[in-house]
């Protein structure tokens, strides 16, 4: 502690900016970690809370995926001896059409029976409703809203609210305002209750319910009731406690959560590199001080502890500030993610409060401090090993010994060989990830030797271009591989990440483009929802014939899709008019023949699945898929596997006739419309709108609009990736600033000599700039190579654990060409400060510096 006070503290004060940057590295890592996890937790918690709040005293819920089921199921449930109360429910989020309010969660319930499960205490209501809730039912436009929602929108009893329904925007009347109870806080207070039969009509449910909420008879346990219901209803229905919906929601977002986890780990790793870089440089910078201390009798342990203590101080400070910053940013991130989820997945969510987990914060602080100590460990150990004589010789410490170089190369070679062997067993998760880590590790271990090699290779080129400045810049890198390689490694790793993410994005965009060209070729799409991903509203069966009768329409293909849980994985079942679709869509088969799969599916003898389904559910051609339906288990063999991006967890395609027969549902939620040749698409589209708009709520999107919508979704999804690229570039800049700051300190005398023998200020500046640009070039070369490897593993990881999507390996060449000016520009900007410092100092002092 005494050494810390005497030596570290003055050093920190002298290099305050660098220390703030170091701490900023930890702030960044811990901040992103805390923000991502808190946001994730808040979203899940908001969903769980909403489920819990609207569950009332419900013990079990009977459901059949998003398709719902026929009204008759209610009687079967009520007939079960163990069931005490069973009430039907329809649940949907609809657009409020009130500026700034977004969507509202509508719970369609049977008011007469539902009060046994949920408490609808009214704060204010029509007198008649206060006396008799049946009056509420008699008026189909009735709505009860929460006190919070009413307050936010100045609503009173008998106020009108415009809601988007299947029949277009309809005015509903507030008949009651619910007192603040647990339930009214559901969905952030944007919650309303409607009569279930009115909900069936306005939400296009026909004579179907979304689920049945159940409470067991007194004296019957939940498990007994659940078992009895399962026995009665068979495997087609899910019978679970309300809390299970949270699990399904989490399963649905699994790939997203994994991506978030990788993001936060990446942020922590970035922080670790900044710390490593800063400490490596601090040790270099203070080599003389260490030498003197060692000469005066300080033990190796004392030196090591001194640096580790500094890392603990920096780590703890950075972690605490990072946790605060993370919590501050979490709500904004959670809301942004919720919006993405709602648009992309049709899963509406409203995060109004943060769920801060004390243990997560503690873990983040421990992880941040631990990361800091871990990152500082090697520099601290190196500091402790400093030979006092060598330490007092300028520059010696920067040299990588032959032995160390050789040892690194051997370890790298061993890591590379083991990683190569792992490739043969990459079907196994541990082998795949071990290989991945070892391959990246080998790259990092080789970085100093490769940096040296490239610096030496670049020297003659630089000498040719600018004989004095170029040579000195290259020599500075050659003479200090330790100093240079720390930054080059950080830059290389950052760029490898960038190539990985960029390559993934590029491959994904290319595949999506190909899929859109093949599968999304109708002239326009008609949907009853506010966007194509929302499935809470459906059209009746006749929509197809109504649109087909419109002048200029050539063909209509209706689609009904909904999410079901298959082997605990939420997947999308898409029913299509197979023959019609086959005549217009030519998909890319991954397995099986396109003609055969279309024929068998159309005949109801099979189904085809997306590649992601096959990967996630570990299924292959010929496997029989058992789908739970209201009519029992539908067993169909897989007759084809295709590339499809309708849903990231996986899609199953069945024929519409099969869907109708087994689900007893003939509604549709998307109509794909083809226009006759020679007809003006816009004119036909307008005619369809004119025909339907009086009866239905409509969303009619042209092919271009759908493509734009999908691309916008992709952009939102990848926005986080681009932020990581920005972080990666910032790390690189920070590393270069650090390296150059030490470099010009080490070369103070040389730069002084250069000025003494006639070097102008601009020539000194150019020397420093060229050094930075050379670091950039070396980082780009090594980063591109490691990135090419990283991309291979990233795509493997995507297929294996992030959605099961198989993507072609396409190296993002254009992207990397774009990175060249970005990295070189960043390197140059990083060099501006150190270059100015190099020319501003006293020349006499510089010449005397040793």
């Amino acid at each position: 502690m005494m050494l810390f006070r005497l030596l570290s503290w003055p050093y920190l004060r002298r290099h305050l900016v660098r220390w703030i940057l170091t701490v900023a590295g930890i702030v960044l890592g811990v901040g992103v970690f805390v923000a991502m996890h808190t946001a994730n937790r808040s979203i899940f918690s908001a969903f769980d809370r909403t489920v819990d709040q609207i569950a009332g005293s419900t013990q079990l819920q009977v459901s059949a995926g998003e398709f719902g089921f026929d009204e008759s199921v209610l009687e079967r449930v009520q007939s079960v001896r163990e069931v005490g109360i069973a009430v039907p429910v329809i649940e949907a989020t609809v657009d409020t059409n009130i500026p700034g309010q977004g969507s509202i969660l509508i719970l369609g319930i049977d008011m007469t029976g539902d009060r046994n499960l949920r408490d609808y205490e009214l704060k204010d209501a029509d007198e008649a409703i206060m006396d008799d809730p049946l009056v509420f039912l008699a008026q189909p436009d009735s709505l009860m809203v929460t006190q919070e929602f009413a307050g936010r929108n100045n609503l009173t009893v008998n106020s009108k609210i415009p809601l988007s329904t299947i029949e277009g925007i309809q005015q509903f009347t507030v008949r009651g305002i619910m007192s603040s109870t647990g339930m009214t806080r559901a969905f952030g207070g944007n919650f309303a209750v409607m009569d279930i039969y009115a909900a069936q009509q306005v939400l296009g449910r026909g004579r179907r319910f979304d689920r049945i909420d159940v409470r067991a008879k007194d004296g019957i346990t939940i498990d007994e009731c659940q078992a009895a219901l399962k026995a009665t209803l068979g495997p087609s229905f899910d019978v679970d406690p309300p809390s299970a919906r949270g699990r399904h929601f989490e399963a649905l977002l699994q790939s997203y959560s994994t991506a978030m986890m990788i993001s936060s780990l990446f942020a922590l790793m970035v922080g670790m590199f900044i710390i490593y870089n800063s400490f490596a440089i601090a040790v270099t910078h203070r080599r003389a001080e260490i030498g003197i201390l060692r000469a005066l009798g300080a033990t190796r342990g004392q030196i090591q502890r001194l640096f580790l203590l500094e890392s603990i101080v920096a780590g703890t400070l950075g972690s605490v500030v990072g946790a605060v910053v993370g919590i501050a940013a979490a709500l904004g991130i959670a809301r942004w993610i919720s919006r993405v989820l709602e648009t992309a997945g049709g899963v509406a969510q409203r995060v109004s409060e943060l769920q801060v987990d004390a243990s997560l914060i503690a873990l983040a602080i421990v992880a941040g401090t631990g990361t800091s100590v871990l990152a500082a460990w090697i520099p601290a150990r190196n500091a402790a090993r400093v030979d006092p004589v060598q330490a007092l010789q300028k520059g010696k410490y920067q040299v990588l010994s032959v032995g160390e170089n050789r040892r690194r190369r051997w370890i790298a070679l061993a890591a590379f060989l083991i990683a190569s062997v792992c490739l043969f067993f990459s079907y196994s998760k541990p082998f795949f990830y071990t290989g991945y880590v070892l391959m990246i590790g080998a790259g990092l271990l080789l970085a100093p030797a490769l940096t040296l090699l490239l610096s030496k290779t670049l020297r003659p080129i630089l000498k040719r271009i600018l004989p004095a400045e170029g040579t000195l810049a290259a020599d500075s890198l050659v003479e200090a591989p330790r100093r240079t390689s720390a930054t080059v490694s950080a830059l290389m790793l950052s760029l490898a990440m960038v190539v990985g993410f960029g390559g993934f994005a590029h491959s994904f965009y290319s595949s999506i483009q190909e899929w859109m060209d093949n599968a999304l070729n109708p002239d326009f799409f008609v949907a009853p929802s506010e966007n194509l991903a929302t499935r809470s509203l459906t059209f009746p069966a006749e929509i197809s014939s109504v649109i087909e009768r419109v002048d200029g329409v050539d063909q209509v293909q209706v689609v009904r899709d909904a999410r079901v849980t298959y082997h605990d994985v939420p997947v999308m079942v898409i029913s299509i008019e197979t023959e019609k679709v086959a005549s217009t869509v030519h998909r890319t088969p991954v397995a099986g023949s396109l003609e055969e799969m279309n024929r068998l599916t159309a005949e109801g003898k099979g189904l085809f699945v997306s590649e992601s389904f096959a990967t996630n559910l570990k299924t292959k051609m010929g496997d029989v898929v058992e789908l739970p339906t209201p009519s029992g288990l539908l067993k169909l063999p897989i007759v084809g596997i295709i590339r499809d991006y309708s849903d990231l967890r996986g899609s199953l395609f069945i024929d519409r006739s099969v869907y109708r027969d087994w689900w007893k549902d003939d509604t549709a939620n998307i109509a794909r419309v083809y226009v006759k040749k020679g007809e003006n698409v816009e004119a036909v589209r307008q005619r369809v709108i004119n025909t339907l708009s009086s009866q239905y709520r409509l969303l009619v999107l042209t092919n271009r609009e759908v493509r734009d919508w999908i691309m916008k979704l992709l952009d939102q999804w990848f926005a986080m990736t681009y932020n990581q690229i920005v972080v990666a570039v910032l790390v690189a800049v920070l590393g270069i600033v650090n390296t150059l700051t030490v470099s010009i300190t080490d070369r103070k005398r040389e730069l002084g000599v250069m000025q003494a023998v006639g070097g102008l200020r601009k020539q000194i500046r150019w020397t420093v700039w060229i050094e930075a640009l050379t670091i950039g070039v070396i980082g780009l070369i090594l980063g591109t190579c490691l990135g090419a490897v990283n991309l291979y593993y990233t795509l493997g990881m995507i297929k294996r654990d992030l959605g099961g999507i198989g993507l072609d390996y396409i190296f993002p060449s254009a992207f990397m060409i774009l990175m060249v000016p970005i990295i070189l520009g960043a390197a140059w900007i990083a060099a501006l400060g150190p270059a100015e410092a190099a020319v501003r100092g006293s020349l006499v002092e510089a010449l005397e510096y040793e």
Partner: protein
Amino acid sequence: MISLTHVSKIFDGKRKATALENIDLHIEKGNVVSIMGPSGSGKSTLLNLIGGLDRPSSGDIRVDGENLSELSDDDRTRVRRDKIGFVFQFFNLLPTLNSLENVALPLHLRKWPRKKIEDRAKELLNLVQLDHRLEHLPDELSGGERQRVAIARALSVYPPILLADEPTGNLDTATGREILKLIDDLHSRLGSTVLIVTHDLEVAERCSRTVALRDGRIVEDRRR
């Protein structure tokens, strides 16, 4: 050639330290002048001011007609690179450059053509009898050889002024004598004005004029 008028140099710190006080000195073209004095007398500071490495706190310094006090940093550098050659006690060779590259450095900074640079550097290294050490790095040379490379570098543009700060201070006696002889030879061949800072009487005696400093003032100016 070199003219100092009322030149003072005060170093600002927690306490002000006067390194030179009211110096008047005029050195004619072609002279070989030694500056002597004990440590801290201001002789190196004087050399740094004449070489344009530092600015005086007051007074004027004229080198070949140019008033250094009025010039910007870059203009002073231009004067230095065109008119002044520096030889340092610790050689100040760039450790990563070989002898040829070290001598060529000032010429590259002047953007001379490559061929001309190579010819001049070789010629100068030949002059200091190091034509067999062209590719050697400073680490691979003896002290005397390093100083010869430094002298060759200082003379690379045939400067009219050569400033040498303790050129033999880091060398053994025999090597020091060789270096002084070399400076004498070069002076007689090139006709440069030479200023040598030294505390070695033997060195001073070889010069045509000796200026002695003490506590930042000229206490003796002896011509031979």
